């Protein structure tokens, strides 16, 4: 992930570059981010954190993250993206019951009395949930006292503008401008 920092405070700017990278890596979101822009103005205070994701957060179904086939009335599922494994198992248990779902190995699951189409359409990760997690991670990386926040979301770009007390129009305008730049820019933002 490429992190660009705009800050007058040299120490604070460099610290937040490291902090942002470490926090995103800790919460497992760094791999999903292509670029981050941090605008730090502690003297106002105004903080604008904008991230451009590698892909727009969309809902994932079992069919998206597994190889699925049917043989003799049993659906065989092989998980291809392991991070969804707990959610797949949870979803299958909820829909078909524990007696019908058997986990053969870490990535292989058999479901009895199920149809391939039905099992494959099960949603294992909603795009909204994913978006919430990313916004939560961005909030987490911001200074603690900066509680008044506004979020812009457009496809792959999420921009959080935050201040301590009330928003003034120029703050939101500035946030919106950085959001637009991140949205319009290509890979070489």
């Amino acid at each position, binding site marked *: 992930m490429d992190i660009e920092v705009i800050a007058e405070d040299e120490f604070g700017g460099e610290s937040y570059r490291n902090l942002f990278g470490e926090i995103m890596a800790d919460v497992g979101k760094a791999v999903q981010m292509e670029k981050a822009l941090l605008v730090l103005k*502690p003297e106002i205070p105004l903080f604008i954190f904008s991230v451009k994701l590698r892909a727009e957060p969309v809902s994932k179904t079992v069919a998206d993250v597994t190889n699925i086939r049917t043989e003799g009335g049993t659906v065989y599922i092989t998980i291809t993206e392991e991070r969804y494994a707990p959610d797949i198992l949870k979803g299958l248990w909820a829909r078909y019951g524990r007696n019908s779902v058997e986990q053969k190995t870490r990535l292989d699951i058999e479901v009895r009395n199920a149809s391939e189409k039905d099992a494959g359409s099960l949603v294992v990760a909603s795009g909204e949930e994913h978006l919430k997690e990313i916004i939560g991670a961005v909030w987490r990386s911001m200074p603690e006292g900066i509680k008044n926040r506004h979020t812009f979301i457009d496809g792959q770009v999420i921009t959080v503008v935050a201040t301590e007390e009330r928003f003034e129009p120029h703050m939101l305008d500035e946030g919106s401008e950085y959001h637009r730049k991140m949205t319009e820019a290509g890979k070489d933002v």
Partner: protein
Amino acid sequence: MFEVLLYDGGVYRSEELFELIEDAGGTVIQKTRSSQMLSVTMSIPEEDRAVITAFCKEIGGEVKSVPLAGTEIAVVGPTLGRHHMPHPICDIAEHLRKQGAITVVMGLARGRGKLTSQINLEEKMIIGEYDAAIFSLGNFKPCVEAKTDLFSDIRAPVVLVSGPMPEGAENKCEAIVSGVGRKASRMRTPPEREKLDEIADKVGKILRDKKKLLDEDPLFIHPTEIKHLLEEYEPVNMCLRPAPVVLHLDGLRVKIGYGEHHEDIENMEIYGRKVGDICRLSPSKINDSSILIRIKTRSEVLQEDSVKEGGNDP
């Protein structure tokens, strides 16, 4: 001169160690047992260090110097939120514990934010109970400078730890250590360990100065003597809280209720005097579950004696 050492080892033959400390004229400041492991903070005459170190090695333990032993230090953050905890606040507290201090980590109720941070009188009084306080602030210079009012009138000496070096904070605290701001990971690189050493050194120097000041009008009795007396008091003996008696430079903290026990303690006798006559007991501001004992100085006790004698004259 007395030297403070920390023994870290097993409980095997520890009774012999205690006897040796007593024979040398030393005293046990703190004793913490965890299962079969034992940590003993002891104050011993400098000339007996070699004998005690040799015995500790013989029974399989290690000995090291702990310059901050016998003190209780508060490490204070703007809040206890994940933005400030566990790093670097817990790293600082851990490092001070390794130097022998008893540490307490606390966060202010409304310490966050540049424009809205504040500290109330109760928090100031709680922090003032400790021998020293370390305030750990953040990464931005304007924010750190705006928050110096948080500790400007605290009774205990304050060390400010922050990322950038703030301007105008020199007169509001005893020392400043810059280069340690908000962190998301442990302080384990060599430069970070050096910073922790620097913090411990600054705290050590402040406490040495405080000790020197106390020596100008010495305490009537050393806190360890009161500690030994209290350890025979059953409620203290039965107290399950870690370190039920904590030494301060000018007294002690006893972790039993003030309302229930202060009269018993005041009526205890040491060197023919009541503890209540040579110490001031007060409830801790944290809650009623601790008693603060401040030992009067020799001149204070002598003056009170002379007033009493004068009062008795016909």
